[in-house]
């Protein structure tokens, strides 16, 4: 994690207003190649607004937005995607009734033939899907099986694999582990680590400090629309991070009341 390289994505003093509501009030963060940046914050901290701004859904009211050192202003999600910023939302944009292959290539189907005989290259699509799933360690016996038959963790991995396959440089993951069990979570975390090792920058949004600490290289904590700070893993412990995220005191006293189990 050398500090000399240009960050893949960097924002400085980002401000976003929705009418009279100040959703972001000066947020700064950056993500490098080969790095998992965890974005931590409790409900209402501005995590969703921040990722939607990064993904090109919202335009910032003010502040700097740099992609690989160049100032950029996205006109929409498609634009962000073309710049290599892919977002995997909580609902995954997957259709349970459709096959794994059809989901994987949805909107970006490989075609062969020309004119009226242009058709989807099903064999290639099936092979790519099978290979990509195999790389993650998901054994899809039949890429034509419906996504609905996959577990939550597997679906999450398919969604991430899809973004990676289609050339994402920066991956924004919106609470990928929030609805998963222990085994499923470790599967997804393992895959996030694998994606990072490939050289991508990952922005991992979560409010679970344990999950963040397991894969994160740096941690940016948001609170009430502002960045409280960014810490490298060796600068901060898991308990400190927890307290920072929850706004300190209150949670600590609550935790004592509950016998230190939060």
């Amino acid at each position, binding site marked *: 994690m050398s500090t000399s390289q240009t960050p893949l994505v960097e924002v400085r003093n980002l401000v976003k207003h929705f009418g009279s509501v100040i959703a972001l009030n000066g947020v700064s963060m950056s993500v490098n190649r080969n790095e998992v940046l965890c974005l931590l914050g409790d409900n209402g901290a501005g995590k969703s607004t921040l990722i939607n701004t990064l993904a090109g859904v919202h335009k910032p009211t003010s502040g700097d937005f740099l992609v690989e050192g160049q100032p950029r202003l996205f006109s929409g999600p498609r634009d962000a995607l073309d710049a290599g910023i892919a977002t995997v939302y909580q609902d995954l944009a997957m259709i349970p009734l459709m096959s794994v292959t059809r989901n994987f290539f949805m909107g970006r189907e490989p075609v062969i033939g020309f004119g009226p005989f242009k058709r989807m290259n099903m064999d290639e699509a099936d092979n790519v899907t099978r290979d990509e799933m195999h790389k993650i360690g998901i054994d899809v016996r039949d890429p034509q099986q419906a996504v609905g038959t996959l577990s939550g963790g*597997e679906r999450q991995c398919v969604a991430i694999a899809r973004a990676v396959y289609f050339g994402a440089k920066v991956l924004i993951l919106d609470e990928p582990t929030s609805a998963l069990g222990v085994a499923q979570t470790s599967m997804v975390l393992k895959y996030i680590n694998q994606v990072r090792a490939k050289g991508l920058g990952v922005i991992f949004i979560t409010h679970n400090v344990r999950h963040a600490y397991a894969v994160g290289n740096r941690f940016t904590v948001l609170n009430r629309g502002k960045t409280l700070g960014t810490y490298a893993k060796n600068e901060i412990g898991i308990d400190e991070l927890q307290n920072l995220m929850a706004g300190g005191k209150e949670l600590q006293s609550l935790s004592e009341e509950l016998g230190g189990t939060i």
Partner: protein
Amino acid sequence: MTLANEQNGSVVGPDERLKKVSTLTAILRRPELGAVAGLVLVTIFFFVTANPAMFTLAGVMNFMAPAAQLGILAIGAALLMIGGEFDLSIGSMVAFAGLVFGTALVVWQGPLSVAILVAIAFAVFIGITNAQLTMRTGLPSFIVTLAFLFILRGLTLVGLKWASGGATQLRGMKGAVAGSPLAPLFSGDAFPGLFTWLAEAGIIDTFPNGTPRVPGIPVEILWFVAIALLATWILLRTRFGNWIFASGGDPRAARKSGVPVARVKTTLFVVTALCATLVAILTVLDAGSTDARRGFQKEFEAIIAAVIGGCLLTGGYGSAIGAFFGSIVFGMVLIGLTYTSIDQDWYLVFLGGMLLTAVVFNNVIRKRVTGER
């Protein structure tokens, strides 16, 4: 990073909790299974109960003709249902397209090609109107097209009276198209030469005077088969087919993945209107006249055939070839009952019963496909 490095036994290698996918399960996964099963059952039923004349060449043509007329509508309806929308106006659209086509042909004295183009233009317009109203208002297509069921039927009545000078029937199409080079595409029987040859060779039945009992294949059956094959190919093997499934399965997810959902649905509404127009042209040329009751209640039969063919009412799942088989089941029962001693009005009872069975069956299948519990 200890957590991330932990081996996760349940994802690497085959999962011991999953049974192997048998060929049977693979077959059960096909959406058209219900329609094929229904067809087999109905065939067996009529083999046992009906006069053997039903399964001669002439008998088969007899029930395939109405099956084809319904089937062309049902395939359009099936594509639209997979795309997540309904069109209840197709029955009325048949009548309306018949009026437009007939007027262009008889009242304005246009050539067949022009009459067809005028009818197509109206169909495209009404398809786009249905689509735009549904998508702009965000109302269910069920209600928007229900409005058009009445609007188009009413317009047909008014229009027919205007075009014919007070009657609800318009005649004289046969004479108007006589000699047109396009006419054989939309009326009569195909391959008469082949059938004459087959009759001379003694392969098919002939009348006492030597002409074949079946002079050829009625063109609507050829249209029906061609459209079923084309629709199936589009659905399963093209990019647009993937977009149809995606638009019906979850429009939001599809849109996020870059699928032009509005364009897909608009195209599908236009396709159903065009299917209705084709049926109108075929039946009008066949009868030589058009009337206000044409296509009456066909929207329901088409949707039932699509459902029997495996389409889910919620969209995103189904098959065109299923609608093809579903329509043949209909044709067989409608005509087949006349070959038995059973009262023909049982047809309606059958219609309802078949719909219920199919919907229940589809629900079970869907749970199997998605692994829902």
